[in-house]
């Protein structure tokens, strides 16, 4: 468990910015307390300061998880969001994908047309419920 490096934070925020945009600031700078991102076993956890202090008492090896998992870094250092982050993203979410066409076009578009580029998989929670952290 360690804080994110700048590169990791940038990738993370870039990813999150796609869904909540500027609201990332609200995640980082919360009025109700201090929250921070921690990396543990290539997974990014969104943790409150309280839990963070408590989790410090546990060795890295023994620690399975803390706080809420937002996603994980692949070995190529890309970031994948996990469905568990949905609760924090939903309030600020603009959408779970990138819109390929405007809403006006979506109305007249061919049914096979691609409207949203894949960004989040809601079915992931069902498929990987056990492994999701």
């Amino acid at each position, binding site marked *: 468990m360690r804080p994110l490096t700048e590169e990791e934070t940038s990738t993370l*925020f870039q990813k999150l*910015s796609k869904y909540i945009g500027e609201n*990332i*600031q609200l995640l*980082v*700078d919360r009025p109700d307390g201090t929250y921070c*991102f921690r990396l543990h076993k290539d997974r990014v956890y969104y943790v409150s*300061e309280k839990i963070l202090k408590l989790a410090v008492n546990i060795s890295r090896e023994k620690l399975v998880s803390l706080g809420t998992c937002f996603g994980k870094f692949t070995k190529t250092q890309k970031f994948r969001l996990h469905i568990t982050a949905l609760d924090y993203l939903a309030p600020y979410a603009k959408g779970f994908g990138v819109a390929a066409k405007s809403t006006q076009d979506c109305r007249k578009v061919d049914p096979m047309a691609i409207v949203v580029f894949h960004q989040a998989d809601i079915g992931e929670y069902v498929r990987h419920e056990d492994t999701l952290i």
Partner: protein
Amino acid sequence: MSKKRQGQFPAFRNCPAKRVKVGGIRCSPSKTVGHPELTSPAPPNTAPQLDMQKANSRPADLPTSGFSKCKNGQKLEAGFLQTSKSPIVRSKNSMSDDDIDSEEELKAMLAEEKKSQTTTFPKTDSTEEGSFEVVGVDFQLNPVRSGLKQKSPQAPRSGNATRLAEDDQEYDSGDTDEIIAGGRNGGQSKDKQTILPKDKSKQKEDLLKNRANCPSSRHATEMSKRKNLRGSEGGSVSRTKCIAKKLPRVSPESEGGESEESLDYESMMSNCCRLDLTLADLEKLANGDAESPGGDARRAEQALPKRQDTGSGQKRKKAPKKGARCINPKDILASLLEGEEKISGQNPPEETMSKSKFQAFRGMGALYGGEKPKKPFKHSGITTQVKGQDSLKQEASPGSSVGKQAFDLNTYSSDEMSPPQDGKEANGANSLPHCPGKLPRRQPASGDQRGAVQSPSSSSECESASLSSLSSFGAKKPLSLNAKTCRTDLGSDDGLGTTELGDPKGEGSDSIPLGPSAGPEPEREPAVLKTQFKKPLQLSVGRDGAPSRVQGKGPEGSQARETECPPSPVALADAISPPRNSQDNQKRLAALEERRRERELQKQLVHRALSSLDSHPANKPSHILFGSDSEDETEEKDGGDKPLPGGGVRRDLASKTSGKLFESSEDEEQETDDEARFQIKPQFEGKAGKKLMSLQSHFGADDRFRMDARFLESESEEEEEEIKEAETAEEEELIAEKKKNMEVIKNILHVSHRAPKLSKEETAAKQFRNIVRYDPTRLDHATFERKVDPEEKESKAKRRRKREEAETLPEVSRDLYHSIAADLKERFRATTPALGTGAAGPWNETPEETETATAPGAPEGLGEFTFSFFGPDVSEVKQEPYKTEARPPGRMAWQRDPRFQDSSSEEDEEEPAPADGSREVARPEEAQPSEKPARRFFFFSENDERLRVGPGSFWQASGSQPSSEDWESRTVALLQDCRKKHKAARRKAKP
């Protein structure tokens, strides 16, 4: 039994002096005499006695029926009793005399009596052999005696309360003496001659009856009667009894004619059997059949063996008893009770008596000795006894019962009273022999019989017999009443009766000669005696000792009568006592039970009170010892335990409470200690706490050196500072992270850091909600109003000032001024002709035209009029700007930007053309100025080629006209293509 004794007593009768003296003496001789008699006569007499008893019982039933009628009127009964008594006594007297003489004499007497009875009671004799006959004779005799007795007894009735004293006095009275004397004489004479004694006996019986009515008087009368009976009337008892029976039946009240009574009695006896049937019948008979006794006697004779007979006989007896005692219902009841007891006891003796009828007197003594062992009578006898009792009852007329009562009274009194009583007892003893068979049979079980026996033994046996008959009637009543209870009592009575039984047997032997008459009489007599003496019985209970003494004396004494007498009183006392004793015992038992209950209740109450008291104090100490909590617990426990009475429980409670208290306290302490032990001690936490711990470990567990939190303060502050520093460090780290993150976000989002500020402003805007709206109606909001007036004033002022300023001409600097030349005319003159010529439409013409127009004119009229702003400088201007010079193409404003030329090749291609055009244009311009150097208007000269060529530079050469043509051609082509594609699509879609 007692009759036998009484029969023995007639010896005393012979000696009247003894009677007076007798008291204690009588008893002794009677006993002595009685015993030998009892032993010897009993066996032979039994058979005839039975017959006699049966006969007696039957006739007794008859008289009882009559008595029952009489019961309704006690007086009537008393009269009957009296009448009946006299003959009975006589018969008894005769019997007693016979007994005294010997069994043979007794037998002879019995035979004589039987003969007389047969005469009197033919019917009864036929059925019941000699006993009835004897009884019948006695009954006949009795009424005479009863009449005699009635006279005497009436006087003595006076004082019931002073019975004993009166008895004593009465004994002393001359009447008694006279009676006794007469009785003696009569008794002696009666022994052979029943009739004479009958009169005396009747008189005595009357006296006895009167006495019976009034216990006190009874005693006196009885005593007198006994004396008389003892002295004179020994063997008339049976007769008197029979007479008494007859009398009540025929004319209970009328005691006058003995013969009539005897006749009536016989008829009554015959009728008695009928009467025996039931109590109800008896009552009916008593109510209405007083006149018709005969049928009743017959009935009684028929039903003799039946218990009903006994019951009826008892009832009948009861009736006469009542009649005899009629005065005091209590006495009557007592007599009834006694009679029952007697009956129970009587039955066995009756059997024996029946055997020893003739031997009765002799047998009395023998019976006492022999019968006492015979006590089994109870067993075999009870039924037989009952029957016999019935017969006896029947036989025993009211008079006999009275006589018995009198005898009893005499005996009791004699026992207690002393010599005069003794004399009476002696009389009773004399009388006993008269009616021994009857009396002993019926009475032996009950002491009354003894008394009856005694009574007959007294002066006149007949009187005693009558008394006995009366007593027997009385006894019958109680028997009937208490029959059920008596049966139970019989057992107890039997014990007494057994002792007595010996007597009755002896009496039975004595009575045997007297036989039938005597038999019933004694039974009735004892009952009466009992009834009469119920009160005296109580006395007698204590007196029992006396009879026993008498008995003891009896053997000592020479005369069998005297010997018999004492046992009879004993038996009387015993018999009376047993019922009384039984009653008393019952009462005592009841009282004891009540006392026990009361004691138990008291004990319970005490227990409760004590328990409550004890429990409280026992609990209180516990309260005192322990705290409030323990007290509460103990109190609760006490409340729960209160119901438990035992003190042990209290102790247990106390122990429990104490133990619990201790435990509880210990537990609490331990708990507190444990809690204190396991509580985290803040002073030992942290580094400073470690130091304290180390110090504490040095000191160990010593309480004096406990390291409190006071030692921690400074160090704890340091720790806190450290912690704060650590926290601050962490916070700083977090803050740093935040900053980094925010920077990253900025970099990613390319958003200035204002966003958060904006957010802050937004938050502030959210807070803006609290702003107060301006309400002009409110005065408070006046503060929010801007003060417009001063501004307006100011504005007005400003306006005024402005106006003033406006009005006031601005000051012009005089330094600057324009000087205008005055030669304007010349200038306008020159131009005026040109203007005048072209004045028609100079305004409509374009300037160029004007210029063009003027231009030609100007050159023409340069000299005359030159109007131009640059007029003077025209030459100079012309020269300077309009000099045609070759400029680079790029510099030209209207030329294309070089960038455009670079943007596209096409443009580059096209550019040379325009460039050429521009050049071409430029060339013409150059040519034109060269050709037409004169006119220029606003940078352009007339016919300037630039104007022609210029638009060409804006318009594409191909696009202008050819574009339209191309467009038309294209549209056509496009339409054709669309149609073709459309057709192709349809063809594709269709297949």
